[in-house]
C-alpha cells in the first residue's frame, strides 16, 4: 500500500502514476475534496481506483512501525503504509506590518481559496499586494468574480519583472498564460517596487498605506490580499526524519516531482528517470521566479516595536528583539507555540532575523487528547 499525504497537484500526479503501475494507493488530505489550493472547487478527482480519505489531518507518524496517526472531525485512527509520499504543498509567506492582523486582510491565495469556496467578492474594493506571480493570478480571479481590484502592488522592481518577462520567451506555454493574465487585468493599476507599509481600521481593515520609492499613499479597501511568496509545508517531513526536501516550486515542479515519487514508490525508477529532464526544466523556471521576486530588505523594517509577529500568542517585535534564536523566542515569549505551531511566524522570523525553526515535535498539529491517547 502506497500512502500519499496531500491531494494537490503533486499528490494527484503521484497517485495517478503509482496506480498506472498497478499499486494500491490511498491519498489523505486535510480538505474535503482533492485538488489542493490551485484546483480548489474545480471538481478534479483522483485517478480511478485510488482510495481517498478526506478532511483528515496527519498528526504524527511512526516510520519504524510504518503508520500515520490521522485525526478527522469525528474520530482518529492509524493508517499503515508500505511506501509513503509526502506531497503537503505550500502555504503563503506572510510578513508582519502594522495592522496586518486586522480582519479583512487575507493572503492572496487565501482570499482566492475563500472566493473559490463561494465568498462573494462582487463590487468589493480589493488591494492585491506582496510579491510573485500569484498576485496577478489572484487579481485576475477576483476581477472575474466582479471585484474592483484597486491596485496590484508588487514589491519587486519593474526591471526585474521585465527581465523575467524576457526569459518567459523560452517557455511558450507560459507566454500564453502571461498574455491571458495581462488581458484579463487591462485597466487595473499595477505598481512595481511598491509595498504595503501599514493597514488601518477599527474592527476590520479600512485602508492600506503603501510606499513606492519616496512616495507614500493610501488606498481605501474592503479587502486586502497580501502575500510575499510561498513557503513549503515541510513540518510533517521534518517530523518523520526526512532531510532532503523538495521545496515549493509551483504547479509544474509539483506535478513532475509527484509523478517521479509515484513511479519510484511503485518500483519503476526506470520510468521515473525519464522525467528528470522535465523536472530540471521546471525547477530552472521556479528558480527564475525566486530570483525575480526576491524580497527587498526594506520589508524587514515594516514591523514596529509594538507590531505583533506571532499571531497565535500575540508576541510583539520588541519582545523578540531580545532573543537570539527561534528556540530562545519560544522559551522566553511563547512565539511559535500556539495552534499554528509556527507555520506563520516561523517563516516570518526566518526573514526578519534569519532564525531557523528546527524543533518539530509531535503532534504536528493541535490534536484532541483522545487522538493521542488512542495511539
Amino acid at each position, binding site marked *: 500500500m502506497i500512502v500519499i499525504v496531500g491531494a494537490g497537484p503533486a499528490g494527484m500526479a503521484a497517485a495517478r502514476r503509482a496506480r498506472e503501475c498497478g499499486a494500491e494507493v490511498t491519498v489523505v488530505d486535510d480538505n474535503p475534496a482533492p485538488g489542493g489550493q490551485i484546483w480548489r472547487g474545480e471538481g478534479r478527482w483522483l485517478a480511478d481506483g485510488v482510495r481517498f480519505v478526506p478532511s483528515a489531518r496527519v498528526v504524527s507518524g511512526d516510520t519504524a512501525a510504518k503508520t500515520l496517526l490521522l485525526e478527522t*472531525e469525528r474520530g482518529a485512527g492509524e493508517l499503515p503504509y508500505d511506501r509513503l509520499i509526502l506531497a503537503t504543498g505550500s502555504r503563503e509567506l506572510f510578513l508582519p506590518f502594522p495592522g496586518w492582523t486586522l480582519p479583512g486582510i487575507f*493572503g492572496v*491565495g487565501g482570499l482566492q481559496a475563500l472566493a473559490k469556496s463561494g465568498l462573494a467578492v462582487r463590487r468589493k474594493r480589493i488591494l492585491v499586494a506582496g510579491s510573485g506571480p500569484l498576485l496577478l493570478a489572484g487579481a485576475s480571479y477576483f476581477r472575474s468574480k466582479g471585484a474592483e481590484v484597486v491596485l496590484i502592488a508588487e514589491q519587486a522592481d519593474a526591471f526585474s519583472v521585465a527581465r523575467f518577462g524576457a526569459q518567459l520567451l523560452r517557455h511558450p506555454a507560459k507566454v500564453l498564460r502571461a498574455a491571458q493574465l495581462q488581458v484579463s487585468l487591462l485597466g487595473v493599476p499595477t505598481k512595481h517596487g511598491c509595498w504595503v507599509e501599514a493597514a488601518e481600521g477599527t474592527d476590520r481593515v479600512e485602508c492600506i498605506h503603501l510606499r513606492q520609492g519616496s512616495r507614500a499613499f493610501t488606498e481605501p479597501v474592503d479587502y486586502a490580499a497580501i502575500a510575499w511568496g510561498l513557503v513549503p509545508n515541510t513540518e510533517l517531513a521534518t517530523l518523520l526524519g526526512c532531510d532532503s526536501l523538495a521545496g515549493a516550486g509551483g504547479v509544474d515542479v509539483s506535478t513532475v516531482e509527484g509523478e517521479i515519487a509515484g513511479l519510484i514508490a511503485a518500483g519503476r525508477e526506470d520510468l521515473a528517470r525519464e522525467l528528470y529532464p522535465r523536472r530540471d526544466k521546471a525547477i530552472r523556471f521556479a528558480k527564475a521566479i525566486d530570483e525575480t521576486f526576491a524580497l527587498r530588505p526594506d520589508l524587514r523594517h515594516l514591523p514596529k516595536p509594538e507590531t505583533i509577529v506571532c499571531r497565535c500568542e500575540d508576541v510583539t517585535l520588541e519582545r523578540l528583539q531580545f532573543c537570539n534564536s527561534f528556540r530562545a523566542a519560544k522559551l522566553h515569549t511563547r512565539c511559535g507555540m500556539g495552534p*499554528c505551531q509556527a507555520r506563520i511566524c516561523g517563516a516570518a522570523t526566518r526573514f526578519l532575523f534569519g532564525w531557523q525553526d528546527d524543533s518539530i515535535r509531535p503532534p504536528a498539529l493541535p490534536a484532541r487528547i483522545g487522538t493521542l491517547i488512542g495511539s
Partner: protein
Amino acid sequence: MLILIDGKPFDGPEDTTVAVALLMAGQTMFRRSISGEPRAPLCGMGICFECRVTIDGCAHVRSCQIPVREGMEIRTG
C-alpha cells in the same frame, strides 16, 4: 441553508465552508486573540488557525476547512 451564528439564524449559501458562510453573514470577527484583538481568516487553507470558532459545541475548529451543514450552531469570539 439555515445555520445559527451566535444564536441568530442566517440563511446562507449551500455547498461552502463555515468560514465563507460567516463572512457572507457579515461577520468581521471570528475570534478574539489572547490580547483581545478581533481576528478573522488569513490563510483560507487551514494553516493559520485564525478562523477558529466553536461548531456544535466543539471548540477551536478551523472554520475554513469545515463544510457548512443545515442547522449548524456556530459560536464566534
